[in-house]
């Protein structure tokens, strides 16, 4: 069943059709929520609530758009509400959440330096960098997803990249001394 059919049948009240959408996107949604929230439990809550919101709002869904970008705005709203409502847990008390997979062809120290560097960034910086460089969204797509102008995307992305570079360097990797000589 494709997304359009699943949405149509969900609108007719078929819960099993909505299940297809949940099962198709829950993993991606959990990964995105965990990136924003930095906490597995909160991510699970946010994704569950976002799917319930999506079901209630399906009548407002614009069928010319793909489902997941529409759903992402709902999920993001849920995540930001959770971030605002919950008192931040002390470092080390929240269950560790992995943002990066561990590919077999990557040096362990690469992920080892990047993972804590990403966690050290502000939530919105982490979200922006991973949407751009892990998911490959364009600046226009980022602007639409985050609800900000394209120019703001560029400015925020530049500062997020700089902070990432500083964080990674602070964790023992020094970058760019060769490239700067040219």
């Amino acid at each position, binding site marked *: 069943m494709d997304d359009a059919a699943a949405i149509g049948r969900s609108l007719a009240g078929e*819960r099993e059709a*909505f*299940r297809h959408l*949940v*099962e198709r996107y*829950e*993993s*991606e949604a*959990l*990964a995105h929520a*965990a990136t924003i929230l930095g906490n*597995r*439990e909160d991510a*699970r809550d946010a*994704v*569950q*609530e976002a*799917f*319930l919101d999506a*079901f*209630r709002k399906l009548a407002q869904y614009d069928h010319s758009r793909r489902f997941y970008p529409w759903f992402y705005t709902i999920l993001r709203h849920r995540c930001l509400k959770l971030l605002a409502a919950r008192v931040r847990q002390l470092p080390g008390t929240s*269950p560790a959440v*992995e*943002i*990066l*997979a*561990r*590919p077999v062809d*990557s040096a362990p120290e*690469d*992920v080892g*330096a*990047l993972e804590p560097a990403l966690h050290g960034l502000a939530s919105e910086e982490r979200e922006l*960098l*991973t949407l*751009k*460089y*892990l*998911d490959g969204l*364009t*600046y226009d797509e980022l602007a639409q997803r985050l609800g900000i102008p394209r*120019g703001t995307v*560029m*400015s925020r*992305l*530049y500062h997020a*990249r*700089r902070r*990432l*570079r500083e964080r*990674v*360097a602070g964790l023992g990797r020094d*970058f*760019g*001394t*060769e*490239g*700067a000589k*040219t």
Partner: protein
Amino acid sequence: MTPDPCEAVRVSAMAVADGEAAPLSEARVQAHLQDCAACRLELARQAEAVGLLKSQKRHLPAEDLWPEIERGLVRSAAGPRQGAGRGLLLLLGLALVACKIAALCAGIGFNWAAAMFPLVLSAAVFRWLRENPFQISSAPRLEGESR
């Protein structure tokens, strides 16, 4: 505030590297970079950090959220009934207050059954609404334990 010319150049260079349209022309960016070692260094460092990130993949957690979402959908389906129940709860509250005031004013001597009546009525209403007003979980979990 006027943007730092170095920052404007770096943002444009980043956009070009990302395959996007940049605010400044490439010729202007190159002219600046030729004379600015600080910009060259910063851009090279960022490119390396970002290159490292681009070589990774997202960790995609494998979890089945459907059972919990389905329970939520079932609860949502009972939404209008809950909405009506809220009005009923308000009425019940008002009735209880009126009952208490009447008892205080008239000095009516309630027997034990009459005294228990409001409690029994409240419990019956909550049961009818299938509500858990105090959100007490019947499945306690240890801290950090996954659901």
